[in-house]
Structures are given as C-alpha cells and as structure tokens.
C-alpha cells in the first residue's frame, strides 16, 4: 500500500508541477509581471531541482501540511478538514441508504429467480445504472423542491442549525448519489446469493427441513455477504468521488465545490490537496477492503 500511495502522490505531483511547465505562470496568469512570477517561483520552491521539490512536497504532505491556499491564505489541510463536515456525512448517508435498499432488493430478486419479481427488480436496477446521478438530483429538485416544496432546492446551513435540519438538506443529494451504486450492489447481491443457493450445504439444509426463510437468511445470505461487502467497500470510495458532482447540483459547501472553486481561482495548492486526499482515501479504502476480504474468507490467501 505504501508503494501505491507513493505512486498516487507522484501522479498528482507530475500533473501539477511537471506537465504544465510553469505552475507560477498558471497561478498568476500570462499577463503577470516577470517580477511577480519570479517571486512566486521562489515561494513555491520552483527554482530547485524537480526531485528535490517532490521530496519536500511529499514529506510535508505526509505530516499533514498541504501548503497554503492562495485564494484564502489559510492552510489547505484546514480548509479540507472543514469541508469534510459536509462531504463525509453525505458519503456515509448515501452508503447507508444504498446498503439498506440494495441488499433487500437483491435478496428479493434472487429468491424469485427468473420470475416476475426478479425481472422487475433487475429492470429497476438497469434504470438505476442508466440514470446519471446528477440528473437524478435535478429531477429530485424539480419534484420535491420546485413542485411539492418539501425540501429546499439546495444549500446547507451547517450543523449549528440542528442535526435534523442538516440531515434533511443532505437527504436528496444522498439519494441521488447512492442511486447508481445501489443498482450495482443490488445486482451483486442477487448474483452472490444465487451462487450460494446452489451449494450443497443449502440443499442439505433444505433436505433436513429447515424453513426457507432460515435457509436464505441464516445459511445462504451469511456466506453471500463476503462478495457483497467487498463490492460495497470499493463503492465507498466511488461515492466519495461522486459526492464532488452532487455537491454542485445541490450547492453544498463540501470538498467538490472547494476544488471547483479553486480551479476557477487558479488556486493550485487547494486542487492538489483535495485530489491528493480523496485519491489517497480511495486507495486506503480499497486496500482495507482487500485485507477484510482475506479475513472474512480464509480460502483467500496472500502470498
């Protein structure tokens, strides 16, 4: 995992510092005076060899120092931490909704394999996969905010105004965010359960007269949970990345809007910091899922 994280940081560094030629010029714009550019270059340490720049930048990042925002003139790490109070709850809420809806639907479909219930559930999941999350968000706003007036059309007043109110303004975005992954997880649940239901021990359980309900939930689903949880774990990272998009639809002040705002303000350290943190989080989540997978299923061995 350390090697992987090293590669993550290298990728970010190469794109921001090496590919464009002169980051100082990008931050200040081409009409900047040569003097200002030279000062910026010095401030960023661009006058030193590239490997030295990388080593310095990476070792600071490891200690949590992601540099200073040009736009706000505060440490990037602090900015990211404050915006996480929106992005993280949104991601977790979407993940919870996804799991709560997808596993029952998958079980429903698998226990009605190749019958109407199965086809209906799979049609629903096909739709969930086809509808882009941000469009689902727009449609939810159209229905629940514009037509029915039950929710505000976006925005977030912070946690200070009450937890219930904050959660309410995250509900529609969380639904739109979780939709795609919900559909994928429902299909995973269905196929994992179908596979287990064909095992000999399920036949044994049925033969000795165990009630069908107990066969499904106690014998089959328990073992099917291993692939289901693996997929759900990987989806957690996807949801985090997806929240960047949904924050824009609902005007939520999270990491995504921070990064998008930083792009228009040419605030490179902020973009760099956000991308580095989210990408590292995804890599760590994926690695954790791998380890968990090995622990849940002793048949899987690592060399």
């Amino acid at each position: 995992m350390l090697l992987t994280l090293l590669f993550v940081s290298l990728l970010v560094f190469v794109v921001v510092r090496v590919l464009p030629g002169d980051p100082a010029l990008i931050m200040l714009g081409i009409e900047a005076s040569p003097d200002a550019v030279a000062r910026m270059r010095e401030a960023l340490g661009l006058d030193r060899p590239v490997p030295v720049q990388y080593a310095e930048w990476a070792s600071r990042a490891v200690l949590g120092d992601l540099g200073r925002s040009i736009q706000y003139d505060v440490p990037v790490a602090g900015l990211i931490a404050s915006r996480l109070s929106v992005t993280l709850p949104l991601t977790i809420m979407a993940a919870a909704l996804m799991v709560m809806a997808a596993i029952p639907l998958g079980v429903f479909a698998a226990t009605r394999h190749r019958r109407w219930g199965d086809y209906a559930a799979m049609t629903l999941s096909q739709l969930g996969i086809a509808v882009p999350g941000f469009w689902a968000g727009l449609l939810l706003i159209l229905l629940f905010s514009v037509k029915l007036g039950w929710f505000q059309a976006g925005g977030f007043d912070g946690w200070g105004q009450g937890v219930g109110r904050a959660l309410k303004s995250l509900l529609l975005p969380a639904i739109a965010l979780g939709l795609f992954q919900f559909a994928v997880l429902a299909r995973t649940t269905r196929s994992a359960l179908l596979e287990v239901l064909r095992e000999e021990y399920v036949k044994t359980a049925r033969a000795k007269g165990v009630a069908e309900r107990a066969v499904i939930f106690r014998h089959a689903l328990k073992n099917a949970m291993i692939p289901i949880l693996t997929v759900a774990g990987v989806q957690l990272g996807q949801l985090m990345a997806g929240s960047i998009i949904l924050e824009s639809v609902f005007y939520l002040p999270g990491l995504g809007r921070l990064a998008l705002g930083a792009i228009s303000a040419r605030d490179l350290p902020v973009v760099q910091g956000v991308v580095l943190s989210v990408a590292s989080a995804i890599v760590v989540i994926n690695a954790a899922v791998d380890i968990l997978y090995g622990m849940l299923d002793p048949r899987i061995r690592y060399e």
Partner: protein
Amino acid sequence: MNETPHPGPLPTGERGSDRLPLLSREGVEARVRRPWRRALKHVTFTVGLAITALLLLTAALSLGYTPRDPLEMSMEARLQVPSVAHPLGTDQFGRDLLSRIMVGAVTAILVGVIAVGIGVGFGVLLGMLSGYFGGWLDEIFMRLMDAVQGFPAILSALLITAVFKPGLAITMVAIGVSFLPIFARLTRAAFLELRDREFVLAARALGAGDAAIIGRHILPNTLAPLIVQASISFPVAILAEAALSYLGLGTQPPNPSWGLMLRESQAFLGMSPWFAVFPGTAIALTVLGLNLLGDGLRDLLDPKMMS
C-alpha cells in the same frame, strides 16, 4: 499489500458449469452455424442492439441533417415548451433542443470510442507485459494500477483542468485513464492463465520469440473478456463525460453535449422543466441501450456466465 482480488466487472448472473444445459445436436449446430439467429432471440441483446442502432443512426443523421441549426439563437424563441416547430422545445438562447440533442449524440459516441480506446490500448499493453514477464515489472505495474484506481475520472479531470484549459480532449484522457486498471488486470489474468499452456510451450519449442508468442498465440485468446469489458466501459464513459461537462470540466459551450445542456438547464428549472428532462432522457436511454447490449453480449460470448 499483495495480490489484489479486484471485484472487476460485476457478474450479474450465476456462475457454475454444473448447471450448463446439455446441448442437443441442433443446439450445437445453432450455436456454431447461426450465431446471429441465436443472438437475435436473446431479448436483452436485441433491445440493446435496437437502442444502440437508434443512437448511431441519430448521430450519423445529425452529421448531415438537423431540423434546425443547433447553434442558431433566437431571442423570441427562448425556453419554449415542445411544439411543432421545436418538438423538444428550446433552450435559454432559443436554440432547438432536438437538434442539439442529436448533435450531442456524436459527442457521446466520440468520447466513448476514444476513452475506451485509451483504456484498452494502454491497459492491454501494461497487462500483457505484466502477465507475461511477471517479476518486479509486474509488481510495479500492478501497484501503479492500484494508484490509478484512486483517480476516478472526476479526480483526474479536476487535477488536469487545474493546469490546462478544460475541453473535450482532457475529458477523454481523464476517462480513458480511469479505465486502465480494469483492462490491465483482465489482460494480465488471461496472460497468467495462458502463458504456461501447452500450445504456448509448443510455439516456444518451435522457436517463436516473445513478441510472436504474445501477439500471435496468447493475445487472440484473451479477446472475449476484453470485448465484453469494452462494451461495459463504453456507457460508463458516456456517463462520465456527461457528469464532467455538467461540472464545466468537459465539453465547452457553445458545443452541444448532453451534460452541458443539463448544466445550462439548472438555472431555469422552475420556469422550463422540459429543458432539464430531455437531455437527461437522452443520456439514460443511451446508457440503458448500451448496457443491455453489453449484458447480452456477455451472455452470448461467455455461456458460463448466463444470467
């Protein structure tokens, strides 16, 4: 961190060769001699094929003909509801939505083809080298792929647009890069499985070099899963382009892109809901058709994974 059993493409069906239906003589003949007839009996595949054909026809037609000029503005005809003159209404500049959605199909297909092309091209190359040669090269390539997996298209696009001007080319690269790990892993797995098989050893014994073994003997045998994965990735690319253009990181105005249209529609959601409905429907329908086609293709190419 060692071997990573990436979940990969999600199996939608049951696996297990013990359930394979025994084929009658006619069944075998149908499978071998009449693949098209068999394919067209597959409902999922046929519906997917029909929708995809519609998409391709729309895109092809729009290159030569659209009901109106997709870029022509008309201040009198702003944000109109669907009518005979404008079957899908107009946008905030009075441009004909039907024409713009038709031209948007070209953008969608273009992004799908190029992004998947980048993913397949570089992914297969990396996977091939990794699986065939193994050792430290394999270790480094695979850890690199783990790292790339931390960059969904949205993150690479954010990063690249921070230093370069946003545009369609960057979108395609960002999406294509996000496809690298899956194609590399698939190819690597196939190469690991095949590289010590008898036919490969026989070829080597006959004096074939590495390049010939890789290109002529192993690679052709890895095509089926790669084709299936490409068909799965294509709609994913279209969704990603729409999302990036919606954020303003993809296609730039005044070029028509479905995602960009939705971005523009949001300001007029209360006044003109149609404007937000039609481009989204175009995306959803396209992705649905391509997904059905991909599912059907997988069933047909890989009978072991019948759903």
